Each structure stands twice: as C-alpha cells, then as structure tokens.
C-alpha cells in the first residue's frame, strides 16, 4: 500500500500545488534555519578528541595580579596560558604519561634549490615531541623528533600535509632540507591531513583556525630565539628588553597540556603544582589565592567560551521558529485535508478503515516533510555559506571558518531527524482528524 499512498500523495499535491508549495516552504525554512544553527553549534561545541577527554588536561596556574584577575568577567578562572618558567618547570615533573608545552610562532620558509625557491610566510607550532602522540596527529611520512630535540638545538622540522604539498609537491620529503628564516632544517616527518575543530589545544588565535604549517622542536626554537606569534599577555610592569628577561617575566604565552591516565596521576600532578605554587609564593610570586587547575577538554571548551551563550540562544530561537513554521503547517494541512474530507468519506464507504486513512494522510505529510527537509538542506547550505562570509568578512585569513560552510553527516542527520519531527508534529493531528470523519455526512453532501 505504500506505493499506492505515495501515488495518492502526489495526486493530492497536484490538486493543491500552491498550498503544497506553501507547506514545503514553511517546513523547509524552519528546517533550514535549524540546520544552520545546529551545524554551527555542533562545529563549535564538538569535542574533537572526546575519546581522550578524561585523560587530557590543560594546565593553568593563577600567576596574575593580586588586585585584578586575568579575566575580570570571570575572576574565578586563571589565565589560559603559563609563564615560560612555570611551564618548563611543570613540564619536567615526570608525572604525566605525556606532557606538551608549546606556542605559536611564525617565519619565512623556502626550499633552496627547489622548483620555487621564493621565501613564503608560514606559521609554526613550537612544541615538544609528545604533541603528535598526545593529540593523535597521524603521520603521512616519517615521524616526530627524539627527546633530545626538546632540550637542545636540533634543526629538524615536521611539515603539515598542505605545506608539504606547497614546498615539495606532496612527495615524501623526509630527509630533504628547507630554510626556516635564516636557518636550514631537515624534514623528519610529514603529517597526514589532520585538523582539530575547534582547535582546543590553543584557542588564542581563532577557535577554528587550521593547524600551523610546520612543527618546530622546543629546543631549537628556544635556542634560536623564535618569538611567539601567538597570544602574549603581561600584567606586571617589568623589564622585557632582553630575551632572557622575557623568559623570566610574568608574561603568559605558553600552552601546556598533560595526559594523565588515572585519578592517582591526576592527584599527583595536582599536588606537584600546588607544592610548586607554595614554593613560588614563598619567594614572592603568585600573589593571588591558589588556583592551580587541570581542566579536561570538555570543561576547557566551556571555560574558553568556544560556544557562546549567543549560539545557544540562536539554537533555541531556531527551534522556536521551526515550531512556528510547524504550527502554520498544521493549519494548512488541516485546511487541505478537511477540504478533501468528502473524498475521505468515499474511501471510508468503499472499505478504508480509519487506520488506512490515517496511514494515507500521514504518508502524504511525510512526503511534504521530506520535500521540506530537502529544501531545508538547500536553504541550510545557503545559510551556512552566508555565515562563513559573515565570519570571514572582517578577516579573510580565518580559514578555519570554512568548516561552517559545509554540511557534515551530522547536519544531514539533523535535517532527517527534523523532517521526522516535522512530519509527526505537523501531520499527526490532521491525519488523525481526517481518519475520524463521519463518511455519511460528506457522502450526502457530495
């Protein structure tokens, strides 16, 4: 009977094309708005490493001014980065299974003797060797550096896949040499395509920015005085004229993450931080109350406002809008179905049960909802494109927001789920109502 009911649905649409189009548009616009807001919300709020969420922790300590918190709007939170000396000290604790300290840098890269030897600007993530294992960055060629490269100058470098495409045409470049600023580095690894959205491990330069172009070992970066091109925040009036002074300052600019596999290691790390805090406080640092935190990824995304309240409100408004669209659709369906009640009466007289009529009309609503979902997906795609334009209009280099311009599986699942919700919400009552018509009334009036 499904095929028969589908055919009747199409006939019904032909009978009232304007009304049908109105319903499809109403559902489509509602679903489109919801899909846009949900996709943006999902992209922004998704934990890209949820399977390790309970093992990965951002390390923060409140080293800020005694009188003014790092974020006056949220005084309970410590700064989201560490000073150089705190980070390097904690990194040597030996407690975590893995520990990573890092910052963003920038420079100029070229391939001497390459097909295109022109220098080009590039971004770098200065980090320690565990970065790739901790954040599960896959390698296409080669691998990470050894532990010694975290401590001393070893001119090795890891390229991302896009940078390897640009510099070496995508071939296996392990062993090749490139020039970073005025220094030659040997390529020891090329990562496979990888991107964390949001870029939870460093949210300072755009939540959805792509990864940096290259990865430089911590030892080399410190030895070569590679400056931070990321976020650096200072509160204390102190001498920053030399590199040495900057490294010993209270400026925060280092991100630190640790992998702590169990409660025991977490407790040990927390104690280690607290003991360090007490020792430093005794020496005159850390003027604020103790606030040393190990924050898991989920909480980190909340603390760093990756998903703003505006987004949540928008999702709520989108659903409210969908509800309004569905209420209108219920009215239109009721009008349409009851207008055709005499035909339903004839079908009842010819042997259709209430259940059969309900099924017939509910399938008709289902087709309308499916058409609405398709339209909604189209409108959603346009909406997401508009969002992307809106986000990137101020800064065309915010390439990470391109993700918002594309559907993912979740968006399509949302559209399908919303179509089902729309069909049930809008169609249940009209389909039930038409099943209850008294056929005798309409047969007499035909």
């Amino acid at each position: 009977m499904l095929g028969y009911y589908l055919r009747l649905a199409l006939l019904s649409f032909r009978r009232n094309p304007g009304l049908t189009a109105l319903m499809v548009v109403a559902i489509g616009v509602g679903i489109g708005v919801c899909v846009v807001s949900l996709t943006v919300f999902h992209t922004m709020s998704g934990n890209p490493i949820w399977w390790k969420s309970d093992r990965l922790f951002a390390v923060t300590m409140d080293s800020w001014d005694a009188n003014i918190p790092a974020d006056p709007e949220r005084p309970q939170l410590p700064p989201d980065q560490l000073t150089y000396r705190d980070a390097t000290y904690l990194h040597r604790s030996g407690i975590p299974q893995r520990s990573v300290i890092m910052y963003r840098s920038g420079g100029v890269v070229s391939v001497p003797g390459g097909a295109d030897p022109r220098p080009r600007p590039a971004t770098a993530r200065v980090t320690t060797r565990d970065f790739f294992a901790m954040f599960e960055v896959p390698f296409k060629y080669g691998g990470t550096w050894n532990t010694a490269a975290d401590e001393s100058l070893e001119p090795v470098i890891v390229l991302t896949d896009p940078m390897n495409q640009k510099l070496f045409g995508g071939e296996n470049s392990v062993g090749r040499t490139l020039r970073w600023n005025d220094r030659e580095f040997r390529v020891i690894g090329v990562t496979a395509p990888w991107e964390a959205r949001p870029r939870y491990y460093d949210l300072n330069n755009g939540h959805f920015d792509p990864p940096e172009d290259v990865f430089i070992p911590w030892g080399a970066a410190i030895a070569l005085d590679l400056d931070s091109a990321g976020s650096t925040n200072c509160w204390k009036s102190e001498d920053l004229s030399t590199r040495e002074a900057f490294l010993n300052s209270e400026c925060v600019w280092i991100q630190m993450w640790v992998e702590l596999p169990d409660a025991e290691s977490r407790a040990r790390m927390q104690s280690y931080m607290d003991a360090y805090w007490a020792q430093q406080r005794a020496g005159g640092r850390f003027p604020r109350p103790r606030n040393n935190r190990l924050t898991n990824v989920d909480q980190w995304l909340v603390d760093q406002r990756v998903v703003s309240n505006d987004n949540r409100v928008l999702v709520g408004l989108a659903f409210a809008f969908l509800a309004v669209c569905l209420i209108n659709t219920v009215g239109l369906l009721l009008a349409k179905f009851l207008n055709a009640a005499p035909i339903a009466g004839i079908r009842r007289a010819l042997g259709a049960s209430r259940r059969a009529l309900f099924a017939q009309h509910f399938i008709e609503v289902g087709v309308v909802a499916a058409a609405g979902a398709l339209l909604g997906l189209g409108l959603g795609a346009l909406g997401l494109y508009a969002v992307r334009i809106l986000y990137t209009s101020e800064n065309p280099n915010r390439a990470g927001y391109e993700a918002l311009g594309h559907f993912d599986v979740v968006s399509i699942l949302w559209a399908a789920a919303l179509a089902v919700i729309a069909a049930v919400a809008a169609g249940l009552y009209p389909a039930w109502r038409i099943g209850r018509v008294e056929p005798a009334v309409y047969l007499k009036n035909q």
Partner: protein
Amino acid sequence: MLDMQHISKVYRSDLVETHALRDFSLTVHAGEFVAVTGPSGSGKTTFLNVAGLLETFHTGRYLLDGSDVSKLSDDERSRLRNEKIGFIFQGFNLIPDLDIYDNVDVPLRYRRMNRAERHERITSALELVGLASRMHHMPSQLSGGQQQRAAIARALAGDPKFLLADEPTGNLDSLMARQVLDLLEQINEMGTTIIMVTHDLELARRAHRNVHIVDGQISDFRAYEPLPEAVAAAGTIGR
C-alpha cells in the same frame, strides 16, 4: 441476509434530539431487490447508512450475513463493508482526480488484491456496465449516466453480496435513469441483493418489494416472496 431488529438511531445536538430510526426492524433475504421509499427526513438514508456500516446505531441488533456488526471494531467493520457491500450514490461520488479505472480500483486496493486480480475485476466490471472503452477517462469527461455506471462498476468490482443504492437515478434524466435501473435489475438477476432508496414510486414498483418509512419506522411493506429458483441459483459477476 441482512437482519435488523429493533434498531434505533438518535441524532443529538445541544437543543434537539432527532429520532432518525425507532424500533426499526427489517429482514432482507439474499437475492432480493428491495426499494425503500418515504418522504424527506423519514430516515431512509439513515437506514441505508446503518445498513452499510457507515453509521452506528444506539439500540437493537443488526446481523449482516451472520455477523453481529455492533460487536465489530472499526477495522472489522471496514473489512466487512469492503467485502460485502457496494454503494451507489445519487451524486455518483467518483473521486475526481482518479480516472475511471483507478476509481473502480479503490475498493480492491483496500482488499490488498494483487495487480493481476485487480485488473481482471476492474475490466470485467467496466465491461459489464459498458465503459471498458472509457476506462482511462476522467469522471469529468463522462456524462451523468456514464458516471453512475462507473460508480456501479466500482460497487460491483469487489463482488459484494449487497448493493446499497441511495437515489441512484436522482441526478439522471429519464432515459439514463431507465438504463441504470435496467443495469441494476440485471445485476440483481445475477444474484446480488439490492436495497435501493428512492423517491420515485415508478422505479420502486420495479423492485421485488417496497418498504415505506415514515418518521424512522416502517409504515408499510410488501411481504417477502421467495425468488424463483432459476434467479436464486444465478451466478455472480466478476469471477
């Protein structure tokens, strides 16, 4: 056999209570052609709707071909209506956006017959009423008489035991009315029981017996006379 005993049907509104049928008893035997007459508002159509399971009744007992319909669910009543009853209406009641073939197909769809069997029944019913060549016409492309014949084909396609006709010639001119009545008589001779509501006493006289309803009660009827053996033994159509 259709057997109603002491049936009552009341329509209630906030202000008025209308007794459409009161203590209504009637038995129609297999193969009969019964004409139901009566003034407007006497309860003829209500009787036909109750008989056709389109409306429920309040008190009494109604056995349709041995089934006590008051105990049936909506699904069971619908199935019984689909399998045992064919309707013919004054206004034809064809579905306007289906062609004649698909209109005749409607009751068969609810019986979940396969395509081949449905096709055979539809074509033989349309041949019987002389509309085989118009099967893909839309109702609006047919004359009133042709539409009524299409409606009769639809009623007959399911091979019902009972044909309930509500003023089947009311919208037709006298020539077409005569043709439709001839067709009904032919169908009755093939063994289908027919109950026809009509205002037209001349048409009613062509039935085996007349039942006259006034104020929801039978005021007069001709007693049932068994049919001649030859007619009773006649086959049914559509097989």
